[in-house]
């Protein structure tokens, strides 16, 4: 049973992405295959150099960098969304894989889940 969690909202402006990440880590903690796909404004989760100190929030970049350590299998980003926001692969946290087709990507998982 493989699960793809999709995050389509920008970090910091909403809590839904953090709760999606908690779901992903939770699957991994129970040894269930889980991967993350970032689309639309959600690709900003993956930017290097985030600093949310002045917002009083923890940087999500650190949380995400720990994802592979927690057993999250893949961190995927929609290539079209990255292009739109002028993000090249070198701007993104290491270990990110660009995918060309959301349709083909989600076809590879038993379950596809949004957190909100």
């Amino acid at each position, binding site marked *: 049973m493989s699960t793809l969690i*999709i995050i*389509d909202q920008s970090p910091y402006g909403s809590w839904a992405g953090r709760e999606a990440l908690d779901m992903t880590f939770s699957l991994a903690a129970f040894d269930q295959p889980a991967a993350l796909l970032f*689309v*639309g404004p959600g690709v900003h989760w993956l930017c290097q150099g985030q600093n949310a100190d002045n917002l009083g929030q923890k940087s999500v970049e650190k949380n995400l960098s720990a994802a592979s350590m927690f057993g999250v299998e893949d961190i995927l980003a929609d290539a079209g969304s990255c292009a739109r926001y002028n993000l090249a692969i070198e701007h993104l946290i290491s270990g990110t894989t660009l995918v060309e087709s*959301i*349709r083909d990507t*989600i*076809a*590879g*998982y*038993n*379950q*596809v*889940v*949004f957190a909100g």
Partner: protein
Amino acid sequence: MTDTTLHITNKAPDHPRFRYCLSAFKEGDALILMEDAVLALTDQEQALPSTSYALSADAQARAVANRAPRQQLIDYNDFVQLTATYSRIINW
């Protein structure tokens, strides 16, 4: 994963997730429109797959039911029947 998929969305047709939902739609899949998504029934800019269904209660509430093809309108029992038929379901 070759199974067909039941896509369920409650997002209005202008919502980005509505677009992702339609772009993920494959031959053999079905689509249920609920809540704000029923506005797609009368959306002149958005073609829907032929196997699309809309919750009648939501369409009536928003006064789009009488302008939609009747065969597309379903009740909650039909909704459950569809979820039982398709083993893979994505809630967009």
